[in-house]
């Protein structure tokens, strides 16, 4: 058997040679799907399987590492064995992978120009990513689920699906700096509540009080794990009449509170709950001393929704007392007719990534929405042209070592959102992003009816008692949050 296996590469080469007699050579790059040409990947990522255009019924690929090792595959699409792929990428961290691709159409082979994929020296040590799957753009009445995906393989597991909690819209799931031992998400709807998991215990908390608008929805953990900041925002969906935009999602009102998980009491600061203003998108810095958020003047909605523009703000925070200090405008984006959303400081404290669109707080439905980067040591900002596209980029988050980030983009077809991953170096240069690898990318991405949104890295696998949740959602047993005096 061993002898037979050792003969396989020779046999493969023979077959390649055999077809070379009738092989056409093209100076063009192969039209692979997804476009992985020139991307930078972490060692140990799931294999970057790809398809040729449908008229090619066979594909042969040879991958050669600049630091050694090689891999071959043949079939209807390029599908690499996981273990061999991991070995090759790990061997070539800091180097390149050289791809030779041949495709067979109407009995003839074509060999295209070779291309390269870069393997970063920066590892991606996280277990995987979590995300919501939802019909594109529709926030309510549809099937929603939260899933986790092992980023080193193709394994996807549901964390919770709305079939278990019918009628309840599941909101963004939030781990503490990618660590799922502290984890929360919010359910909207009749049994609306916030699920908070800390190590082995979990609780259902009603964060709506007599002094606040409702339950917290979009949250961000304080790094020490005692606090989290949350926006309280009744969300509504509207439609655009023309053919340039489709859906607009906006907040009827929006306030920010900070929740103390020691006793589930809320810090309600009048400066973050102003009636004439909307406060949203909170995020603590990794040192825990600053809270970034966005703030806009409120207008009548949906009529004047395109007048709502958010500035980037920050306020100092004392984790000992929970006291908020001076508020400062960091980027007065509204002055230049822009709107900022989702500030996300990197976990090493070096960068702040945020979204910029023409207006509003829901950039996923804005074609013009782009990712921007702020250097927190200098305050300089720039659009991340390396990853932006003519379509919406949104819902970005950092890996636990802050060398990788992911985001959602509609660039594939303008409608369905997919998850992209890119790396950033110490100077803030980002690499060409790659779409989340799939076993058979065309089959999955062309066949899916779901958008992948609100992705985040997760350091380890999320453990979640799905059956227990079903019982508990409908039991309405809740801890009632109070307001700190």
């Amino acid at each position, binding site marked *: 058997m061993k002898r037979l296996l050792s003969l396989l590469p020779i046999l493969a080469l023979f077959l390649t040679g055999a077809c070379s007699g009738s092989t056409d050579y093209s100076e063009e790059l192969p039209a692979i799907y997804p476009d992985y040409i020139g991307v930078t990947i972490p060692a140990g990522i799931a294999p970057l399987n790809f398809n040729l255009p449908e008229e090619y019924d066979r594909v042969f690929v040879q991958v050669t590492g600049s630091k050694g090792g090689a891999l071959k595959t043949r079939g209807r699409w390029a599908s690499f064995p996981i273990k061999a792929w991991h070995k090759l990428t790990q061997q070539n961290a800091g180097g390149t992978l050289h791809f030779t691709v041949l495709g067979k159409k109407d009995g003839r082979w074509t060999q295209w120009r070779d291309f390269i994929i870069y393997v970063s020296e920066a590892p991606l040590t996280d277990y995987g990513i979590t995300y919501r799957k939802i*019909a*594109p753009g*529709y926030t*309510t*009445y*549809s*099937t929603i689920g939260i899933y986790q995906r092992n980023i080193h393989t193709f394994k996807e597991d549901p964390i919770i699906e709305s079939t278990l909690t019918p*009628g309840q819209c599941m909101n963004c799931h939030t781990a503490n700096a990618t660590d799922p031992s502290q984890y929360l998400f919010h359910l909207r*709807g009749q049994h609306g509540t916030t699920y908070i998991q800390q190590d082995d215990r979990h609780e259902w908390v009603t964060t709506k009080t007599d002094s606040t608008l409702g339950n917290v929805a979009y949250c961000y953990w304080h790094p020490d794990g005692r606090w989290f900041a949350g926006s309280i925002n009744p969300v*509504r*969906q*509207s*439609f*655009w*009449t*023309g*053919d*340039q*935009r*489709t*859906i*607009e999602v906006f907040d009827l009102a929006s306030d920010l509170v900070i929740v103390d998980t020691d006793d589930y009491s809320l810090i309600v600061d009048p400066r973050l709950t102003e009636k004439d203003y909307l406060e949203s998108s909170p995020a603590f810095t990794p040192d825990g001393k600053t809270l970034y958020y966005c703030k806009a003047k409120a207008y009548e909605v*949906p*009529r004047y*929704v*395109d007048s709502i523009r958010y500035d980037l703000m920050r306020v100092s925070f004392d984790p000992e007392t929970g006291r908020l200090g001076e508020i400062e405008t960091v980027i007065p984006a509204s002055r230049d007719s822009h709107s900022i959303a989702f500030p996300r400081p990197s976990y090493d404290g070096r960068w702040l990534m945020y979204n910029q669109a023409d207006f509003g707080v829901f950039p996923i439905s804005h074609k013009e929405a782009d990712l921007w980067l702020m250097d927190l040591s200098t305050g300089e900002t720039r659009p991340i042209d390396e990853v932006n596209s003519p379509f919406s980029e949104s819902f970005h988050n950092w890996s636990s070592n802050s060398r990788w980030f992911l985001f959602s983009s509609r660039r*594939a*077809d*303008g*409608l*369905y959102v997919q998850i992209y991953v890119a790396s950033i170096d110490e100077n803030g240069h980002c690499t060409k992003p790659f779409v989340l690898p799939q076993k058979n990318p065309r089959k999955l991405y*062309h*066949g899916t*009816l779901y958008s992948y949104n609100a992705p985040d890295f997760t350091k380890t696998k999320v453990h979640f008692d799905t059956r227990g949740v079903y019982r508990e959602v409908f039991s309405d047993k809740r801890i009632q949050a109070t307001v700190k005096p």
Partner: protein
Amino acid sequence: MSRKGRRILWIVLAAVLFAAVGSQCAFLLRHPYFRKYAALNGISLREARDVWGKPDRDAEQILGMIVEADAENWEKVSELAARKDLRSEVGTYYYNLSNAMLGRLPDRLMDYYQPFERGLFLPVGPSSTPFKIACAGDVWFQLGYMPLAERDAMLGLLFSPEHNGSRYLRRLAETNLVTGEHEAAAKYLRMLLNGSRADRKWARACFPENWSQPYRLRIAEKRNLMPQFDLVHGMDQTPLILRILLSANQTNRMALDYLLCYDLLTKDIDAFVGDFDPSLTRSPLYEEAMLIFLAAKGGMNAENFAHYHISEASFQRFNRFVTIYKRDGGSGRNLTEEFGKSYWYYYYYAVKNETK
């Protein structure tokens, strides 16, 4: 087993087989639309019976209206509706849609059960059934309003048993072709290429590079109905959407009739008068509504009658209605036979059942 025993066994097996095939044939003969509806949802007859159960005659009639509406056979939809007034929202919805497509919505509106505005637009919300949501976009597509046509098709697809029904994929492809989102349309067309032979043929013809002249015209006509400016609206602003459609294209007669009928079915006479332009459309229904308005506001004169095309016969009939109404102290018992299908009768006696 003896030879005789084997013979009996064969006869029994043949009888069972015959009965099974016969039963299937009888079912198909009785429920031809059930099978077609199942096919539109991408599932087999057997799967459909497992998921939806066995349809009764009323369900078969409604499924027939959906299937024929999907094929845009509006006369056939109307004919099916006429077989029996099912007093159902979906039945009325397709009855109204077929009449609108045949240019006779106001003339036939009062001939049928009208569950207020829910017979014009099926509500889409947390308490809506997937079946109704799947139907709700048909009217929006025909009116030329793609955002809601797309929403309802997408939700219909997600709620359908196998998430691959050609009914929804074709609608999603077409809404995106109309709005010019060809990449998104291609996604659905590619999915249809994995379907039945008819779906494959349809999909191939719909890739923009393969458009025939009639299909190009169809897309252009629908696009011509779309509002050309961006204005944002909420989920429950149906009259506003219809007015936007009209301001975008004054020749959208269907939008005008739907708006006027919406005003009338919600008994909002003031809105009706504001929306009604007698130079654009006319119908006995609108005459009846105007008479209520003019009687209430004191405008019963020849000038108004001429302006609103109110005939002498309508005026006399209205007088008779009012006389009986007053004579009987507001009771409708003597009005039902003669005026049961008038707007006046609907206006005074129709009561909204909020639970339906």
